[in-house]
């Protein structure tokens, strides 16, 4: 911002209403089609913003927008921008809230300084700088909010994709689908351990049928999960070992000797049942019925 004192505060003081009205018109022309309710909201916001802008300009019209006098304006824009990001406005629609302010101010300046080309040029330049800075602030805030939404969604997705299933009184199953990276492993471990505590399970079957690749890292993550469950007093079995996986594990030299492994979840369940002292007994069918397995 230029260091010479700007006449902008006075212009705003004198022509606030006119600038606001023109700006609102401009927003509606450049922005998207609004419902009546949205239009009223936009009006209200615009008036509030102009008031805030006027007050900030009065206190400090030459030092840029980062000073304490401009906190109100900054907060307003950051707030508006985040809300619009969450409400599905596009970046352009959000930024044009600010950028469409140029036109009305320029025309007000025209009227004030029309006869004095140098003053008009100076003031126009200052307004340009000001609006650009405000516009950038708005865009950055918009971007930040979008990123936060994405991160939150990623987190939710991660948690949803690792369910823990209770197979029997004290036997849990953890069917893993997809890759097992370190972020996912943390979620898996947390979910599994919490389930062990809540269900007081003695056994957990980790099924890796749905894990496409088992490399050294994945194997390490699996072993970590097994070790953590052990510390909670639950024994782990790994099932769903496909032939290729079995080969990979041996080639990698991963030591699974302390973990019981089975090819299928059913086999693992069988082992867990027996270890916990359960026996599955088939009741004989009535002679007239057909007892299919």
């Amino acid at each position: 911002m230029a260091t010479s004192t700007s006449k902008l505060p006075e212009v705003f003081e004198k022509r606030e209403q006119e600038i606001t009205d023109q700006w609102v018109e401009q927003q509606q022309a450049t922005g998207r089609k609004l419902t009546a309710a949205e239009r009223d909201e936009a009006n209200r916001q615009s008036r509030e913003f102009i008031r805030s802008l006027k007050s900030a300009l009065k206190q400090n019209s030459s030092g840029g927008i980062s000073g304490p006098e401009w906190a109100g304006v900054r907060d307003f824009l950051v707030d508006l921008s985040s809300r619009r990001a969450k409400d599905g406005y596009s970046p352009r629609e959000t930024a044009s809230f600010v950028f469409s302010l140029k036109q009305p101010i320029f025309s007000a300046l025209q009227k004030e300084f029309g006869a004095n080309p140098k003053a008009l040029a100076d003031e126009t330049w200052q307004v340009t700088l000001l609006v650009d800075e405000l516009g950038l602030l708005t865009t950055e805030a918009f971007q930040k909010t979008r990123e936060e939404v994405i991160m939150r969604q990623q987190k939710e997705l991660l948690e949803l994709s690792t369910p823990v299933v209770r197979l029997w009184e004290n036997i849990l199953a953890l069917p893993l689908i997809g890759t097992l990276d370190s972020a996912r492993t943390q979620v898996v471990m947390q979910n599994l351990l919490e389930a062990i505590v809540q269900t007081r399970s003695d056994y957990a079957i980790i099924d890796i049928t749905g894990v496409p690749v088992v490399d050294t890292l994945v194997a390490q993550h699996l072993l970590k999960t097994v070790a953590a469950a052990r510390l909670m007093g639950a024994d782990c079995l790994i099932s769903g070992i496909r032939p290729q996986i079995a080969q990979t594990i041996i080639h990698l030299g991963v030591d699974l000797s302390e973990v019981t492994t089975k090819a299928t979840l059913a086999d693992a369940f069988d082992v867990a049942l027996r270890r916990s002292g359960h026996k599955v007994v088939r009741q004989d069918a009535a002679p007239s019925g057909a007892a299919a397995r």
Partner: protein
Amino acid sequence: MEIRASDDVVLVRQAVRKKSIALGLGLVDQTKVVTASSELARNTLDYGGGGTVHIEVVENGTRSGLRLTFEDQGPGITDLALALTDGYTTGNGMGLGLSGAKRLSHEFEIWSKPGEGTRVSILRWK
């Protein structure tokens, strides 16, 4: 904070716990950073002859984290590479402390000069 006696290790843990809660770290993340601080505080005491720890919140654009810096004027570490290998197989307490703290943190830095002292800095992002 000063680390001069074993009671101080407890105080360091409590301080780090408090700061990480304030930062909004989840329970597992809190536990990891507090445990790492416990390891390093013990090292500072047992091998560094006592020292200090500095706890600070750092910001990097979108994310924030907790940085802990442990410093002592002790004998220093002659073979850093060795000290950082997982020492638990040899039963070396310091080895596990350093490598353990490293594993529990997102960033780890160590400076040591024999005869001058050691400085270890760990960082855990939110």
